[in-house]
């Protein structure tokens, strides 16, 4: 069967006769369309000869029918010759319908409308988050009352997934940041001959701020996103609904184990980050500033009070709570389409890093005022 369409036209005194041969389908239809449109302007008679046609699909049938309508509207005589019963039947069965194309055009709302809509949506999301926060608190107290229903297995699984497997990347990141900070400051310190102060600087900045923040950022990127994607996918496949109907409260099975696991392990992750960061700084101090390891440690012990270390560690559970709860909340916000997994995952990571930084700022104000 020929895949091509041949289109023979003879045009004289505003009368067009078109003979089609071959296959008329979605792909060859354009040739036919173009041929007709060349003459359509001042036509009085259009004669279509389909005798040579081998096959006709519904798309072409729709076009021929709408052409007929167009001719009727423009008072053009329309003649159709076709001997093939089958083709005629196809032409008969399709009917032209019109969809309102206007409805497909997206109308841009005004700036004020968008502003208001955005504000309302955000407020709604925030109140939903508060609701979720309430659910978590309720779940937590319920758990304390019914310790037997605590899902140890899930918690340990999450500890392994989200903390133990993250030790290496947290350590490497912190080590490199330790190296970079030390290296940059050593240049300045050397000018004043204040080499030894590298220890004070590194000790306080790493223990108090850098290690907790860095750990939180790595964990937000690693676990926060995975919580959102996992729970979002479970929502789309109706797994969450299935759990509900079977009496497996997702709060108890999915939400709390993740939050608890991360809150338990975050201090430990920060501790690892402390060690790695100081090691990085120590390496630069030795190579670049000629401060030996024993001197470095002596000085660290002398000038950096233990409170700095504990302040850093104490931030861990708070950061962990923010990351885990935002990640899970975003997962629960996923609606029934695949795109919303993507947007919610992005939002989850951005929002958790942002909230961790805000939380850190609040902490630093509180601690300064308390004199810690």
């Amino acid at each position, binding site marked *: 069967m020929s895949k091509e369409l041949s289109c023979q036209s003879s045009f004289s005194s505003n009368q067009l006769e078109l003979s089609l041969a071959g296959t008329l389908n979605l*792909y060859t239809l354009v040739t036919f369309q173009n041929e007709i449109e060349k003459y359509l302007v001042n036509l009085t008679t259009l004669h279509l000869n389909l005798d040579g046609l081998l096959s006709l*699909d*519904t798309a072409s049938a729709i*076009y021929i029918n709408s052409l007929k309508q167009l001719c009727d509207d423009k008072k053009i005589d329309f003649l159709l010759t076709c001997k093939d019963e089958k083709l005629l039947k196809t032409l008969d069965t399709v009917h032209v319908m*019109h*969809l309102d194309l206007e*409805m497909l055009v997206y109308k841009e709302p005004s700036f004020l409308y968008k502003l208001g809509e955005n504000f309302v949506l955000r407020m709604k999301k925030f109140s939903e988050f508060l609701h979720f926060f309430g659910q978590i608190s309720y779940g937590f107290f319920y758990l304390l009352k019914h310790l037997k229903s605590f899902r140890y297995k899930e918690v340990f699984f999450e500890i392994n997934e989200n903390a133990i497997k993250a030790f290496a990347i947290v350590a490497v990141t912190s080590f490199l940041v330790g190296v970079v900070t030390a290296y940059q400051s050593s240049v300045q310190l050397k000018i004043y001959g204040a080499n030894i102060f590298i220890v004070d600087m590194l000790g306080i900045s790493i223990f108090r701020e850098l290690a907790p923040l860095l750990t939180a950022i790595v964990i937000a990127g690693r676990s926060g996103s995975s919580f959102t994607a996992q729970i979002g996918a479970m929502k789309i496949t109706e797994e969450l609904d299935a759990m509900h109907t079977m009496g497996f409260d997702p709060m108890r099975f999915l939400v709390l184990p993740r939050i608890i696991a991360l809150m338990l392990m975050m201090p430990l992750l920060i501790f690892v980050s402390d060690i790695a960061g100081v090691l990085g700084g120590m390496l630069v101090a030795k190579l670049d500033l000629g401060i030996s390891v024993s001197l470095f440690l002596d000085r660290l012990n002398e000038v950096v009070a233990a409170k700095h270390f504990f302040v850093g560690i104490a931030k861990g559970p708070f950061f962990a709570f923010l990351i885990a709860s935002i990640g899970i909340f975003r997962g629960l916000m996923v609606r*029934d389409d695949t795109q919303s997994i993507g947007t919610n995952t992005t939002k989850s990571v951005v929002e958790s890093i942002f909230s961790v930084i805000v939380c850190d700022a609040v902490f630093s104000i509180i601690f300064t005022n308390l004199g810690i």
Partner: protein
Amino acid sequence: MKKIIEVKDLYTQFDNKIVHAGLNFHINEGEIYGILGPSGCGKSTVLREMVMLQEFKQGSINILGHDISDISYDEAQELRKNWGVLFQGGALFSSLTLYENIALPLLEYTKLDKNLISEIVAYKIDIVGLKAQDAYLYPSQISGGMKKKAALARALALDPKLLFLDEPTSGLDPISAREFDRLILKLRELLNLSVVMVSHDLKSIYDTLDRAAVIDNKIITAEGKIEEIIVMENPFIQTFFKAEI
């Protein structure tokens, strides 16, 4: 009659589990062919193998004159335009409206203008029994049955010669299911369509199928016209076809 699909000595294995141990059957042009069998016998797997979603271990499948175990990328792309596939859950693109779902293959593969495409889409929406205003809804806003109809409209978008249906009537109410059967018969007549379907719906099997293959215990236990299959002595066939309709 011209053979449109020919499956020869098809052998499928997942890890250590043998799913098919040598399937042989063919489907003629213009036929509605059923693949039947108990749950887990690999009906959907054969269908997935035929539409090149899954590889098989041995044997050959020839579709519309192409041997799909030895096919170039371009040939495969060309072949894919000649068939439509209806998945069990519809598998509509969730970020697009029904209109966009159905128009997508037309926009991608043809050079037709927007107005004609919208007319084609409207026609497809109409023949599968949806209403014009449904076109602007997203898949998450419609019921399971509507999703199925919309997915059929998408499968028919390019006027394929060959239609693969994976449990087309499952999840439809009985009235829509019968409508669907009639629709398939009508489409076959209209478009000279050949249909391959996996089905569990007895009524639909009796009403629509010309021939069928029953897969049981890794092989084809029966093949041919439905009337010939029903009378065969086979535990699955006996229990399956004895069920009250």
